[in-house]
């Protein structure tokens, strides 16, 4: 399977077989991501890390991934120090990064920004999140986490909880899990329901998601609980945010209603939706999930750069 030169913009650009291949490669990267083994397969390659929006995990794990592969990283994490401040278009910024590097990682507040970036760059572009749109590498690391913990993705009962309207990770994930035939339940406040478009995509793939507001019942026989933050920054007005924030909270009391092998995932950052007391339980997978960003992004960087272990 040849990924050399390919852009990573949307999970929908990939077949199930291609996703499986990426996950296989990610598994091989784990000891390198942990620093137990060393490689220089991307020696002398330069990655442009262009973060027009804040990020902790995505940016650091991409940079860690490139460094672990022996490559180097240039870029910015705050666009206020760039010519964007002077009114430069994204297209022109991308043209510059294209000239200075071998691969571009971009996070941007506007939806479709990564697709636009790919139009103006000859080198491969990886989407690190575009507004409330897509976040394919998060989706892949979520699939990788489920696969490594549950040994399979298909037929798991998976609950997606929280901001299903604006949360970009859950849109990509619902689509990808449907590709595998997982059983999906969506739990959200009424004003933050999963968009119809996403539900229709699941149905087109043969999955009939259940939508409910009853979290306790939803998790009673679930294999995976995927929690998302209510994203204040995506709300058009503060009043709407205040009405829904804190409606759902995962704590040890709630998890008594769940199966012992339920895993709780979260793309992080969390605010109040998961009580820190959950961190010490075997349910808590979110920090391991965050680590998985490194091997998955190492796999993607090596595949699109043509580097082989």
């Amino acid at each position, binding site marked *: 399977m040849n990924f050399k030169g390919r852009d990573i913009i*949307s999970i*929908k650009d990939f077949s199930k077989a291609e996703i499986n291949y990426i996950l296989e490669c990610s598994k091989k990267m784990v000891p390198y991501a942990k620093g137990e083994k060393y490689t220089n397969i991307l020696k002398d390659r330069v990655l442009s890390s262009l973060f027009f929006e804040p990020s902790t995990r995505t940016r650091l794990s991409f940079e860690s991934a490139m460094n672990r592969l022996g490559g180097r990283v240039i870029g910015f994490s705050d666009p206020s120090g760039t010519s964007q401040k002077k*009114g430069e*278009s*994204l*297209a022109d910024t991308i043209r510059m990064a294209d000239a200075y590097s071998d691969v571009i990682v971009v996070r*941007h*507040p*506007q*939806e*479709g*920004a990564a*697709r*636009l970036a790919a*139009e103006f760059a000859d080198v491969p572009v990886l989407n690190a999140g*575009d*507004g*409330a*749109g*897509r976040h394919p590498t998060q989706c892949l690391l979520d699939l990788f986490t489920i696969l490594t913990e549950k040994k399979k993705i298909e037929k798991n009962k998976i609950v997606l909880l929280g901001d299903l309207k604006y949360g970009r990770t859950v849109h990509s994930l619902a689509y990808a899990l449907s590709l595998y035939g997982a059983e999906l339940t969506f739990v959200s406040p009424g004003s933050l329901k999963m968009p119809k*478009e996403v539900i229709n995509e699941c149905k087109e793939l043969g999955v009939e998601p259940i939508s409910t507001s009853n979290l306790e019942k939803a998790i009673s026989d679930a294999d995976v609980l995927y929690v998302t933050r209510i994203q204040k920054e995506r709300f058009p007005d503060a009043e709407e945010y205040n009405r829904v924030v804190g409606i759902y909270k995962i704590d040890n009391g709630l998890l008594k209603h769940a199966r012992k092998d339920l895993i709780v995932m979260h793309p992080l950052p969390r605010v109040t939706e998961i009580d820190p007391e959950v961190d010490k339980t075997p349910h808590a997978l979110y920090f391991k999930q965050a680590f998985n960003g490194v091997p998955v992004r190492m796999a993607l960087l090596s595949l699109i750069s043509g580097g082989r272990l």
Partner: protein
Amino acid sequence: MRELKIQTIKNGSVIDHITAGNAVKVLHILGIPKTSSSTISVAMNVKSKFGKKDIVKVENRELDPQEVDKIALIAPKATINIIRDFEVAEKHKVKLPKEIIGIVRCSNPTCVSNFNEPVESRFIVIREDPPRIKCYFCEREPEDIAERII
């Protein structure tokens, strides 16, 4: 050959079976009359056996069927009749192209195509009739295509 319900022309093009009320938008999509000095007639709410329809008649200009295909966005049942010496010489049913470029504005206010970037709006056609399109950039599907014509 079926007689057209509006005054016949000697040479030119007739766009028939336009969804009633959409004739002006059809002209707008085709860039007519800006791109044409021809005489243009518009008939709206014309009675037909399938209900009401609009008709556009462009004299002394043969429209390229492929150029006209994009009107299928708002008039998926339209036909293009090429008239030569008062006869319908060619008849073509509009068919949406695979991509619609620069005609529809994305309904997503935070789509990158709605900002100051050097790109035209671009949509992938998902279904032809009734038309369903998806923004190439943000993947949003506009529900009210006719209202989004640039």
